[in-house]
């Protein structure tokens, strides 16, 4: 990877199940990404502020608690309010099929569910980052 992609992986809300987020963070690192991991129990505003300071090209959210319908769009809102609505947001976790359409309508670029191959996730992040970098210049 000649171009360096910086991404943020974070967990919004009170859900403390971080194995998935950490697994994705490591997988992205091993694929050559620079991954900023912000840990568990973050507010959408904290995630947005961190994404901006770190100048990431994409944000990845993980949720296992069922609160994704509220929390993922809240991160999008927080990014928009902070003037960074152009940063793509990808999400994954225990997400029922029927929630995918409303999440995409709310602006989440891609949704990953249990069973999504890790290479698909890596490719989706690479695509999102590449797109964002092109917009920048």
């Amino acid at each position, binding site marked *: 990877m000649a171009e360096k992609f*910086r991404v943020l992986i974070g967990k919004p809300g009170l859900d403390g199940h971080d194995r998935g987020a950490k697994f994705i*963070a490591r997988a*992205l*690192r091993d694929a050559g990404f*620079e991954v*900023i*991991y912000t*840990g568990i129990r973050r507010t959408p505003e904290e995630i947005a502020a*961190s994404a901006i300071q770190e100048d990431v090209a994409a944000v990845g959210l993980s949720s296992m608690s069922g609160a994704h319908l509220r929390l993922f769009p809240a991160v999008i809102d927080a990014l928009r309010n902070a003037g*960074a609505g152009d940063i793509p947001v990808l999400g994954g976790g225990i997400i029922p099929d029927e929630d995918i359409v409303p999440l995409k309508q709310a602006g989440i670029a891609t949704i990953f569910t249990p069973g999504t191959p890790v290479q698909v996730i890596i490719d989706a992040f690479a695509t999102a980052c590449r797109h964002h970098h092109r917009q920048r210049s």
Partner: protein
Amino acid sequence: MDTRDILRRVHGGEPRSIGRAISLIEDQVDCAAEILQGLDPERIKASFVLGVTGPPGAGKSTLTAQLVRHLRLQKQRVGIIAVDPSSPVSGGALLGDRIRMMDHALDQQVVVRSMATRGKLGGLCASAGAAVRILAASGCRTIIIETVGIGQSEMDIIRLADISIMVLAPGFGDDIQAMKAGILEVADLIVVNKSDQPGAEKLALDLATVFQNAEEKNLRLLQTIASENKGLDELVKRIQDMEKQCRLNGTLQKRRLQSSALETLDWAIEILRSRLTPLIEKQDKSIDPRLAAEKIIRQLIQEKD
């Protein structure tokens, strides 16, 4: 955004432009030099660069977060650059130092930037030095660079910082013995963190042999429990007294000049590297590497003339 726009926003403290400016330097984009040249030299001069290094698990990030809290009570705008190594295999990096700084995540006057070393030949100095100046120009009074003290990076941070702290904790055993000869002599302050844990007293005693006399020991050795905010008042006071003294006696200015010269060397090597690689590929492989290097350099110099 054009360069002038970015510069104006950086000086106005706008978070997104600060982040972008640092990325442009990291990615070595053409306009990077123009941005760095346009930074307010007065703000850079007035800023103070504190290096925090130490072995993994010594509590550097927790200590840094506490330092930030104290500096914020003094109403200072603070910048933090957290450096972690890039994987030499994948080129990727996992940057997790922010987790300990999340208390400050919504504070507009605390700017945190994680940086990966990206396998630079000259270590972290080149990009991190530039990032320090961007944060200073954005109005940060104190900039803390934090890096894990393994291998070369701790020396790099010490040459980049105005004052540096080595953070240790009990339980590292013989590592301390091995460190004695090098890094401990160069760090301005040595902090024994987690000093409520078994072995802390012994560590402090072991460290005593690093100092020439009791007076120096009293000046350079401190004990803290960062997670409980214990010993932090004393540490902050010591750091700030030291800064004042270094400014007065000219040490700080001298260190900056040295650091600037080293950063220039780092960038020069970095720039040269891309020109050297194709020449090396063309070289006769039967020549001994030492001799081959000399030939290539001679070739390069002649090209210029």
